[in-house]
C-alpha cells in the first residue's frame, strides 16, 4: 500500500485552522500580560476568582496599607491615650482615647504643640533628668507623672515614652502612651486612709483595754489588801472577846451567878460565830478573786484523800459510800476541796436528830461533762428554797449553826471552774446535790 499524502485542500484547511489558533493564543497572551502589568502597577483592586463555591472577589491591598489599617483600628479601640509628636514637639497623631482624655478633637490638634494639650509635672524632681537620660540611652522611659489639662483637671498618668525612628534610625519624634490612673490613685489613697483609721481605732481600743485591765488589777489588789486587813485587824479584837470571856468563865467560875455564866456563854458563842463568818467570807473572797488554774483531777483519789484530811467525816457514826470509779474532771484542787468539804459537811450536819448520817457519792458522765452527786439522808430542803440556799447568808434554819456562806462558796467555786451546782431535795427525804464539771480532756489525765 502506498503512503497517503494529504490533498492540497486538506493542507490548506489545516493551515488556516492553525493560523486562527495562533491568533487567539496571541490575543489571550496579550490580555494576560496586560492584566499582570495592571496588577504589578497597583491598578487592580480586586480579582474575581472561581472558587468551588462560585465566583469570589479577592481584594488586593499593599502590605503597608494593611499594616496601617490594623494599627489604626487598634489605636482607635484601646483605652490608653496615644500621642505621637515630632522633634519639634508638634502633635502628629492623637488616638480616640487621647481625644476623650484631654477633651479635644484630633483634627484640631494635629500640628499644635503637645504643651497645648497638657502641662506635664514630674512626681520627683529628678525624674525629668532621668527620663531624658533614659530616652537618650535606650529610647524608652516609663513612670508616673501629673498632667494638668487645658480644662483645668489634674490627672495622674502612668506614662510610657518611646523614641520614634525612621528606617535610617534617626529620631523623628516621640510616642507617648498615657494611662489615666487618677481613679486608681484615689482608691489607693482612700484605702490608706481607711487603714490608718482602723489602726487608730485599734490603738484606741488597745488603750482602753489596757486601762480597764489596769483598773481591774487595781481593784483586785485592793480586794486582796482588804481581805488581808480583815484577816488581821478584825480577828484581833474578836480574839480578845472570845479569850477573855473564856478566862472569865474558867477562872472566875465560883464568883459568877448563873445569869453571869449564861451571859458569858452567849458572848463566847457570838464571838465564835463572828469568827467563823469572817473566815467564810475570806474563803469566798479568795475563791472569787484568785487565779484558779484548771487541771485534770482523778476524783477517786481526790475524794479519798479529802476524807482522810477531814477527820470529822470518818470519825463519828457517819457512813459514806462511794460508787467507784468516779472518773476524772477538769478542776482546781483548792476550789474542788472547798466544794466537796462543804457539801459533805452539810450532809453530816443536817442529818435528822438521832439518825446517823448516810452519804452516797457517785458520778454520771455525759457529753464531755461529769456530774458528781452527793446524796444524804438529812432533813431535806423545800422546793422553794432550792435556789435561795445558794445565796449569801441565806440559811433555812440558823439553828443548825453554820454561817450561810458555805453553799455560796460551793456555787462560786463551781462557776469559776466552768461548772455549776444544783440540788434536788424533798423535806424529810434527804437531799441530792449535783456538782457538774467538765470531764478531763483526752491526753490530760
Amino acid at each position, binding site marked *: 500500500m502506498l503512503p497517503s499524502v494529504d490533498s492540497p485542500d486538506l493542507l490548506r484547511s489545516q493551515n488556516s485552522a492553525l493560523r486562527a489558533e495562533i491568533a487567539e493564543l496571541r490575543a489571550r497572551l496579550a490580555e494576560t500580560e496586560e492584566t499582570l502589568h495592571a496588577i504589578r502597577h497597583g491598578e487592580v483592586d480586586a480579582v474575581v476568582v472561581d472558587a468551588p463555591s462560585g465566583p469570589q472577589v479577592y481584594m488586593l491591598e499593599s502590605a503597608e496599607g494593611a499594616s496601617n489599617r490594623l494599627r489604626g483600628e487598634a489605636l482607635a479601640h484601646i483605652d490608653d491615650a496615644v500621642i505621637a509628636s515630632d522633634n519639634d514637639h508638634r502633635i502628629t497623631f492623637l488616638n480616640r482615647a487621647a481625644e476623650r482624655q484631654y477633651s479635644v478633637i484630633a483634627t484640631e490638634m494635629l500640628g499644635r504643640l503637645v504643651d497645648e494639650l497638657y502641662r506635664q509635672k514630674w512626681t520627683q524632681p529628678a525624674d525629668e533628668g532621668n527620663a531624658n537620660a533614659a530616652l537618650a540611652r535606650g529610647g524608652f522611659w516609663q513612670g508616673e507623672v501629673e498632667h494638668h489639662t487645658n480644662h483645668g483637671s489634674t490627672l495622674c498618668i502612668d506614662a510610657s515614652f518611646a523614641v520614634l525612628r525612621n528606617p535610617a534610625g534617626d529620631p523623628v519624634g516621640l510616642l507617648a502612651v498615657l494611662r489615666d490612673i487618677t481613679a486608681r490613685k484615689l482608691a489607693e489613697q482612700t484605702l490608706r486612709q481607711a487603714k490608718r483609721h482602723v489602726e487608730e481605732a485599734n490603738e484606741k481600743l488597745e488603750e482602753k483595754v489596757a486601762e480597764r485591765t489596769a483598773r481591774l488589777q487595781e481593784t483586785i489588789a485592793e480586794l486582796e489588801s482588804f481581805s*488581808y486587813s480583815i*484577816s*488581821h485587824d478584825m*480577828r*484581833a479584837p*474578836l*480574839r*480578845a472577846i*472570845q*479569850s*477573855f470571856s*473564856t*478566862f472569865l468563865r*474558867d477562872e472566875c467560875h465560883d464568883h459568877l451567878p448563873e445569869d453571869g455564866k449564861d451571859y458569858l456563854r452567849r458572848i463566847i458563842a457570838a*464571838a*465564835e460565830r463572828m*469568827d467563823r463568818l469572817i473566815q467564810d467570807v475570806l474563803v469566798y473572797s479568795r475563791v472569787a478573786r484568785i487565779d484558779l488554774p484548771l487541771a485534770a483531777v482523778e476524783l477517786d483519789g481526790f475524794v479519798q484523800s479529802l476524807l482522810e484530811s477531814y477527820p470529822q467525816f470518818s470519825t463519828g457514826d457517819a457512813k459514806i459510800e462511794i460508787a467507784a470509779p468516779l472518773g476524772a474532771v477538769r478542776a482546781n484542787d483548792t476550789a474542788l476541796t472547798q466544794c466537796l468539804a462543804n457539801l459533805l459537811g452539810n450532809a453530816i450536819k443536817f442529818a435528822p436528830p438521832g439518825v446517823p448520817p448516810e452519804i452516797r457519792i457517785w458520778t454520771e458522765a455525759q457529753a464531755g461533762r461529769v456530774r458528781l452527786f452527793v446524796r444524804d439522808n438529812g432533813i431535806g430542803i423545800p422546793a422553794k428554797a432550792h435556789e435561795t440556799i445558794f445565796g449569801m447568808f441565806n440559811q433555812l434554819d440558823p439553828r443548825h449553826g453554820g454561817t450561810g456562806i458555805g453553799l455560796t462558796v460551793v456555787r462560786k467555786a463551781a462557776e469559776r471552774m466552768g461548772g455549776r451546782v444544783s440540788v434536788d431535795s424533798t423535806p424529810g427525804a434527804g437531799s441530792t446535790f449535783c456538782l457538774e464539771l467538765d470531764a478531763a480532756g483526752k491526753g490530760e489525765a
Partner: protein
Amino acid sequence: MPASVLYVEDDANDAFFMQRAFNRLNHGDALRIVSDGLEALRVLESRSESDPPALLLLDVKLPSCGGIDILQWVRSRPAFAATAVAIMTSSTQTTDVELAARHGANAYLVKPSNAGTLEGVISALLDLCESGAPAASRLPVAGNRLP
C-alpha cells in the same frame, strides 16, 4: 526549860495571852515581851554575844519593822544560829507561810481565836526547843488548821 524566850508583839491583848500561857506553864520568868520591831532589834543586838534567846516569837505585823524583816535580820547573823524563830500571825494565807519558810522560820503559828488553847501550842513549841531541834528544821506547829 529554855534560857529565854523573846516575844515581839504590839497588840496588848495578844501579849497578855502569851504571858498568861507561859505563867500557866510555870515558865513565866523565861518570857520577855517587846512591843516594837526596832526596839526588838536593839535588844537582840545587845544580847547577840552573851545571851541570845533560845526561842524568838515574832508577830508578823509590827510597827516600824515587820516580823519577816526581823526574821531575815536574825537569820543573817551567825550569833543566832541556835535561836529557833516562830512567826505568829492571824493570817492563814499561804503566801505568808511560804514567805516565812523561805526566810528561815522554824515554825509558823496561827494565833488561836481562843487564847485558852495557846498553852498547848506553846508547850509543844518549848518541847521542840528543849530537844535541841536545829535552826534549820522545818516543823510547823499550827495553832489552828492550816489550809
